[in-house]
């Protein structure tokens, strides 16, 4: 048998490979609902950034003489009990709500990624201990802890605020000024909400890291001398990004919802940094008399949550190669 190679045929083309990210984006673009949701959401965020600055009325400009009025030509969304323009307040409230959603999610993101990444990467005892803690924390009724936290420690006489003021006194002239309290409150809200939602993120990240850990590219990276931190943060985590992104997108509306709930109980953001939740809660009190004070903030909140959920769903479907919609 002659060991000659068979002639390579002339008309021989290779199929062009495409990266996972590009495939996913293409699939996402085909999902009309997700695209519309994304556009609406972007428009909303843009509006919340621009409108309060450009609007004729300021969000905290009270006019007790006018009092609450239904939507009119002057006030497109009407005014609230203190005569403040509702449109400006609603879009300013949007800034607050989105900020809460974003920053709390960021907190949960960073804690969850580090926790889950370390647990998944090191495995063995480290993993067992870290995940056991997660399991125990999972069973604690967190909303109660948050309520307790907000009521007791986040109050104006509480120790945390005192600490905050002392830190503040380094930077500002009058730290006792009560208008700093809402800022403090919001920071607490970021931390508390982030503190509750990192658990599932940690679990997801750990699962991803475990399944990626055995892959050849990790061995390759290790063989060129990558240390633990580099392996975790530069190699494993970027490849685990898919479900992480999906879960992050779905955490934002969850966090926003919890914040709205806290505001309803009076434990969330405070005036003048009132979020949609607080606006809706105040509006709900006087719903039968001035329904527009409830409707507009509630509508904005619902639309944002709606869009985030659609977007998150679309991302999940786009990144999961198994699910085919057609």
């Amino acid at each position, binding site marked *: 048998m002659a060991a*000659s190679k068979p002639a390579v*045929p002339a008309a021989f083309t*290779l199929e062009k490979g495409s990266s996972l990210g590009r495939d996913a984006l293409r699939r996402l673009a085909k999902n009309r609902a997700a695209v519309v949701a994304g556009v609406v959401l972007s428009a909303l965020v843009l509006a919340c950034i621009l409108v309060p600055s450009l609007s004729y009325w300021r969000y905290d400009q009270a006019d007790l003489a006018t009092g609450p009025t239904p939507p009119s030509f002057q006030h497109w969304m009407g005014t609230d009990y203190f005569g403040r323009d509702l449109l400006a307040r609603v879009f300013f409230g949007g800034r607050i709500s989105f900020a809460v959603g974003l920053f709390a999610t960021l907190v949960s993101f960073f804690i969850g990624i580090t926790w889950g990444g370390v647990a998944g990467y090191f495995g063995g005892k480290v993993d067992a201990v870290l995940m056991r803690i997660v399991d125990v924390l999972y069973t604690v009724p967190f909303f109660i802890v948050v309520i307790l936290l907000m009521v007791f420690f986040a109050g104006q006489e509480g120790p945390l605020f005192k600490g905050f003021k002392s830190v503040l006194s380094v930077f500002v002239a009058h730290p006792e000024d009560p208008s700093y309290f809402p800022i403090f409150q919001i920071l607490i809200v970021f931390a508390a909400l982030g503190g509750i939602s990192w658990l599932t993120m940690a679990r997801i990240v750990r699962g991803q890291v475990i399944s990626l850990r055995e892959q050849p590219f990790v061995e390759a990276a290790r063989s060129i001398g990558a240390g633990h931190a580099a392996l975790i943060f530069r190699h494993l985590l970027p490849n685990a990004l898919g479900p992480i992104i999906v879960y992050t997108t779905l955490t934002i509306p969850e966090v926003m919802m919890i914040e709205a709930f806290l505001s309803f109980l009076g434990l969330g953001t405070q005036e003048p940094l009132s979020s949609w939740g607080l606006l809706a809660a105040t509006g709900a009190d006087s719903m039968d008399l001035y329904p527009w004070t409830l409707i507009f903030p509630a509508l904005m909140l619902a639309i944002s949550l709606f869009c985030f959920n659609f977007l998150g769903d679309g991302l999940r479907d786009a990144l999961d190669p198994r699910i085919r919609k*057609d």
Partner: protein
Amino acid sequence: MALLEVHGLKTHFSTEEGNVRAVDGVSFHVERGEVLGIVGESGSGKSVTSLSLLRLIPSPPGRIVAGEILFESSPGKKEDLVRVSEARMRAVRGDRIAMIFQDPMTSLNPYMHVGEQLVEVLELHKKMKRPEARQKAIEMLKAVGIPAPQQRIDDHPHQLSGGMRQRVMIAMALLCEPDLLIADEPTTALDVTVQAQILELIQDRQKALGLGVILITHDLGVIAKMADRVAVMYAGRIVEEGPVDVIFEDPRHPYTIGLKSSIPRLDAVRGGTLTPIPGMPPSMARLPPGCPFHPRCAHAIARCKEVYPDEREIPAEDGRHLVRCHVEDLAAGSVAS
């Protein structure tokens, strides 16, 4: 009259990348008591063909666009399975034509115990009552070689080994004594030692019941052992068909020749090279014009790029040997190996 005759079957899928012509004009037949092997690479359309026979193609993306599938369900009575009603199709499935699949772990319901899955076939098609059906199921488990069937029948699939699960699938398929068994890669997911056992089991049951069998595989060794006749599929079409001896000794299509040559041989020269077929199978959404194999074919002529070859018969001794290729005087041995 043949048990099953397929003429010009075309099954297409509408996907993101366009219209995928997974099965594009396939014709073959199976006689009672004979084993037809369908061999081809992944993506050649062999599984889609088998699923089309039972109309199990998921219907939003896929549909049978042309062809007829003539099945002799009772002596002298032929039905076109493409056109019969869904109700009639359901009566045929599992009763007259049965199918076993590649991966028995995922093909059996993990939440039901084995007995339930067996009994339901008998209750459905033979209207048996549960105790009688259970008894018959136990007998069938015994016939396929499962030890202690009275205990095993209440096990869940994950409690059985891979080989035993496949035996259960075979038992499930044969419970109603069908006329035709379609086996889609029945041994691919199993260990090599178990593979031989399962193949022997299929052969044994086939002879005992006089079944017609369509055996789908990518493994030429399986074909050599089991099949009476062979059909070679490439890119959704059958490129060569004939009795198994003839196909192995005198392959006429460059693809078949290539397949045969790419098998490593025990008596090969040490240090010699393996000869794979160069290139890759085409994307089924963008098939090349003319003969789909021409980009990889060392013997392609101009005509191959333009016109799809017709069927041509080559004289053979025991059965018809058909090939679809423009190149007329290709004979075994003229290709460097």
